[in-house]
């Protein structure tokens, strides 16, 4: 018996069948094609048409590539179907784990008064804006009902450090419960660090708590974006950063930035600030169109096209820095690349189908209200309570099977959303019902007018475009 099958067993001269795939124009005659699970390559428009019309020569390079990427198969072949099913199942396996990220707003009070902030209150009214021990306990009861064996609790604000007693209580209780139930629990505090004290750091060290802080750029920009009494947000941040790194280790203190209109022409300076402070990651983020950001017109102060230019210029600068030996990566690009190149979903709520709201992440507000996502409670601050899915006093089943959540998730399936279902970038994207409801009053929204769609399609196209350069491709794919 020969080691190899006869030539007649191969595709040469045979007709072929199509598998589900989508495509999008990158530019002129160059198209991106993606299969059912997001594997992709670039193809010439004529080759694409020939492939769809069954005119591709089965001994051509294009056909081989299409066959290897499961765009086509030969009648009788089973392995492409089985492989696609296996990859699809792997891509969606997180659904079985249900909620992993649980955010707790322990205080809405804050020492800052940022124009774009969605939710914070400059108030001394502890009773009114802090989470009580009772609400925290009830939240924990729900958190530990998740079938997921590993979960993360993120303390949010306002400024969560203003209610550190409740953080301490929750951490200790959660650790006990996790031990009892055989689950793994991790903690993060989202804080500006301006009120960080030594005893807090010691507690964080003892309980392996990570800090996610905020840095908007150089001193003048940061202080201008983040006003507080004494106008010293940056100075306090810097002092705390050194201390936090000393106690917790550099890898346990990360930073996020928010782009305001004052940031738009300063992306290189912002990145330089991150590099000079020794950060190995930066997340170039636009403003969210919620709460105070919209009320104060901060969100309307720039268009998404301007932000895209900011992002592209920033990403290019980061790539150039890496080529010079500075190790820094852009987080959003990394999330998207992980979706493009692996079947391991990074669980970024905005880029999930069905949407990650409620089922990947959920938020317990200071007053006991439960929201489907961080953005949902911000929307509630504008008086839109569409995504309030319950209260800590409700039964777990009533919260997570609430009509509010089910309807939003149902409408968030990109495979059945207009334009999304035929988009080449669908496997990487989401439909973000909270954004579309907040902006356009509709869970689905009209995609051609959607700023969410414009932003993400712009980024997907850009990532495909820059990966045409082999050196850049190797460099950024290494971030995953």
């Amino acid at each position, binding site marked *: 018996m020969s080691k190899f099958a006869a030539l007649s067993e191969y595709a040469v001269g045979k007709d072929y069948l199509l598998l589900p795939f989508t495509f999008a124009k990158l530019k002129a005659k160059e198209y991106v094609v993606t299969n059912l699970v997001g594997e992709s390559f670039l193809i010439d428009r004529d080759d694409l048409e020939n492939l769809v019309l069954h005119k591709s020569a089965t001994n051509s390079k294009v056909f081989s590539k299409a066959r290897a990427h499961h765009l086509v198969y030969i009648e009788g072949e089973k392995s492409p179907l089985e492989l696609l099913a296996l990859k699809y199942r792997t891509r969606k396996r997180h659904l079985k784990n249900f909620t992993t990220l649980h955010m707790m707003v322990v205080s809405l009070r804050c020492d800052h008064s940022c124009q774009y902030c969605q939710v914070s209150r400059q108030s001394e009214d502890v009773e009114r804006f802090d989470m009580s021990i009772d609400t925290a306990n009830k939240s924990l009861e729900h958190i530990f009902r998740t079938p997921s064996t590993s979960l993360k609790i993120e303390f949010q604000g306002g400024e969560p450090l203003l209610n550190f007693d409740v953080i301490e209580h929750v951490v200790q209780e959660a650790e006990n419960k996790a031990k009892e139930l055989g689950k793994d629990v991790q903690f993060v505090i989202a804080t500006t660090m301006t009120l960080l004290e030594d005893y807090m750091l010691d507690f964080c060290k003892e309980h392996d708590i990570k800090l996610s802080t905020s840095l908007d750029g150089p001193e003048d920009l940061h202080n201008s974006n983040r006003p507080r009494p004494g106008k010293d947000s940056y100075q306090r941040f810097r002092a705390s950063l050194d201390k936090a790194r000393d106690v917790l280790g550099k890898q346990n203190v990360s930073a996020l930035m928010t782009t305001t209109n004052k940031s738009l022409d300063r992306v290189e300076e912002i990145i330089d600030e991150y590099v000079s402070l020794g950060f190995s990651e930066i997340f170039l983020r636009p403003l969210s169109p919620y709460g105070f950001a919209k009320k104060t017109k901060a969100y309307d102060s720039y268009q998404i096209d301007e932000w895209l230019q900011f992002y592209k210029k920033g990403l290019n600068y980061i790539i150039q820095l890496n080529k010079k030996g500075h190790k820094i990566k852009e987080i959003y690009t990394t999330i998207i690349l992980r979706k493009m190149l692996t079947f391991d979903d990074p669980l970024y709520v905005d880029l999930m189908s069905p949407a990650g709201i409620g089922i990947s992440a959920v938020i317990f507000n200071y007053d006991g209200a439960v929201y489907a996502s961080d953005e949902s409670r911000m929307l509630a601050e504008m008086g839109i309570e569409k995504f309030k899915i319950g209260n800590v006093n409700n039964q777990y089943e009533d919260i997570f099977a609430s009509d509010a959540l089910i309807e939003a998730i149902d409408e968030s399936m990109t495979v059945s959303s207009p334009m999304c279902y*035929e988009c080449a970038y669908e496997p990487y994207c989401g439909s973000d019902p909270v954004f579309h409801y907040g902006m356009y009053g509709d869970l689905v929204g009209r995609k051609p007018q959607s700023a969410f769609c414009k932003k993400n399609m712009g980024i997907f196209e850009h990532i495909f475009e820059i990966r045409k350069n082999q050196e850049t491709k190797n460099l950024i794919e290494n971030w995953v």
Partner: protein
Amino acid sequence: MPEVLEIDTTVYSVESVKEALYRFSDSFSSNLTHNDNLLRVEITLTNGNADWNKLRTEFDKELLDQSLRERIRAETEDIRRVILAHAFSNTSIID
């Protein structure tokens, strides 16, 4: 005055035309009437200063793409169901 397109529906399906029009809904609104094999599309530009000839060229290209997409969908609808059914068989995600 609206711009008018007349499309032969033996060449492009009404669905393909609608899909293409949706993609351009940020540039123009449309009104469709269908008689026999002729689809008449009245187009009103959202921005009066937009270059209709340029938009028309892009729209024609989009129509071609949409008819390809329609063909892929028609040919792969059944196999998609088979793959998805297989993907979630024997899992606790769906009963």
